[in-house]
């Protein structure tokens, strides 16, 4: 395998280009913003579709996400965050805000059957992503099922502790410490495996 086909090198080069385009977007460079859009819109649309299965609504969420990205790009710090992680965070948070404003969040809002997206056919670079998936899924499976489901609902459907407490008929404090323990367990498992 020559260096240029090494998925790690391709991923590194892709990340460097995206970092550069995002930094220039923060300086008000509209063509750099278009570069960011072209490189990431399919991925971020996938994120929006996880939160809004309705395609029209996911498209609106995606538009809002990119305007937020344009407005906040100056706050992206290349040394502290990966560009993809930053873009996914902005998109997820904006979409969850939208979901909350429509009163559609909840502990049961996420269909258990569709919790983890089906893996797409794997290109070389996607193999890396697939291995991240396996680590997370393996460790999630080690958690109490209800805790794991709640963590997914919080992240993907904006569920709150109050909603979980109501659904489980448990005091808020009990629910909070249960989830905190689950988070510590999840982290130990993932750090041990990766």
């Amino acid at each position, binding site marked *: 395998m020559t260096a240029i086909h090494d998925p790690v090198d391709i991923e590194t080069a892709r990340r460097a280009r995206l970092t550069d385009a995002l930094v220039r977007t*923060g*300086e*008000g*460079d*509209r063509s750099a*913003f*278009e570069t960011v*859009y072209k490189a990431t*819109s*399919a*991925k971020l*649309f*996938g*994120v*929006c*579709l*996880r*939160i809004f299965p309705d395609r029209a609504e996911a*498209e609106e969420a*995606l*538009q*809002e996400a990119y*305007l*937020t990205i*344009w*407005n*906040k790009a*100056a706050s992206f710090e290349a040394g*502290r965050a990966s560009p*993809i*992680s930053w873009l*996914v*965070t902005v998109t*997820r948070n*904006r979409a*969850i*805000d*939208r979901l909350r404003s429509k009163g559609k969040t909840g502990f049961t809002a996420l269909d258990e059957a569709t919790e*983890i*997206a089906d893996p*797409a056919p794997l290109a070389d670079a996607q193999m890396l*992503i697939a291995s*991240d*998936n396996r680590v*997370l*899924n393996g460790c999630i499976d080690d958690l109490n099922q209800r805790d794991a489901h709640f*963590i*997914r609902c*919080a*992240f*993907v459907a904006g569920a*709150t*502790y109050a909603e979980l407490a109501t659904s489980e008929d448990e005091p808020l404090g009990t629910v909070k410490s249960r*989830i*905190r323990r689950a*988070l*510590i367990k*999840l*982290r130990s498992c*993932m750090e041990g495996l990766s």
Partner: protein
Amino acid sequence: MTMLNEEDIAVAGEYVLGLLDPSADALAAARVATDAEFSAEVEAWRQRLQPMIDGNDTPVSPDVWHKIAAALPKQSGQDISGGNVRLWQSLSGISTVAAAIMAVILLQQPAPVVLPEPAAPLIAALGSETGRASLTARYDSDNGQMLLTPVSLDTGELYPELWIIPADGKPRSLGIVSGDSPSQISINAKLRDFIDQGATLAITPEPETGGPGGQPSGPILASGKIVSI
């Protein structure tokens, strides 16, 4: 550098999951800005959890880019240069919503079809050199509400009074607050313009009715600059 304990690690995870209440969320956001270890743990949680939110990559209709591009400030034109766009992005005095409205008025462009983004919340971490007093503040300029959360504060026999000190250096009272539980403060409309990036929030110990003549009489116990997140 601080060593993170399990509590910090769980808070970083809850922050990424969006589970913290507003005051704890503001505190975590302030820590991300100031504590490198905590910030690295937040980034690690984002990467750990990201596969959960990843869907399948899905091509987007070209219409979506056209709508986004139409909602951006225009680049071409004599008086709207890239420099002005930068200026708009960096202006501390205007909210994103106000900027969006200005964009519509000045550029005469069709109104964007997307919802205006809520103004970025303003936060401040109030502290003292001795580390004995610490509070957080979060301000929503859309409704003029400030949430002040004391972490530790001791004013003895006196009462904590909150002040806003803008660029002119003159303190204006935001009222007596609680020293041991969060206060939701509705900021007087006349004072709202002062609550902005770069202005300072401060706490002094005062009599129950506030500093005599509306001025602080006690020493500053805790203070911090307002930043946008």
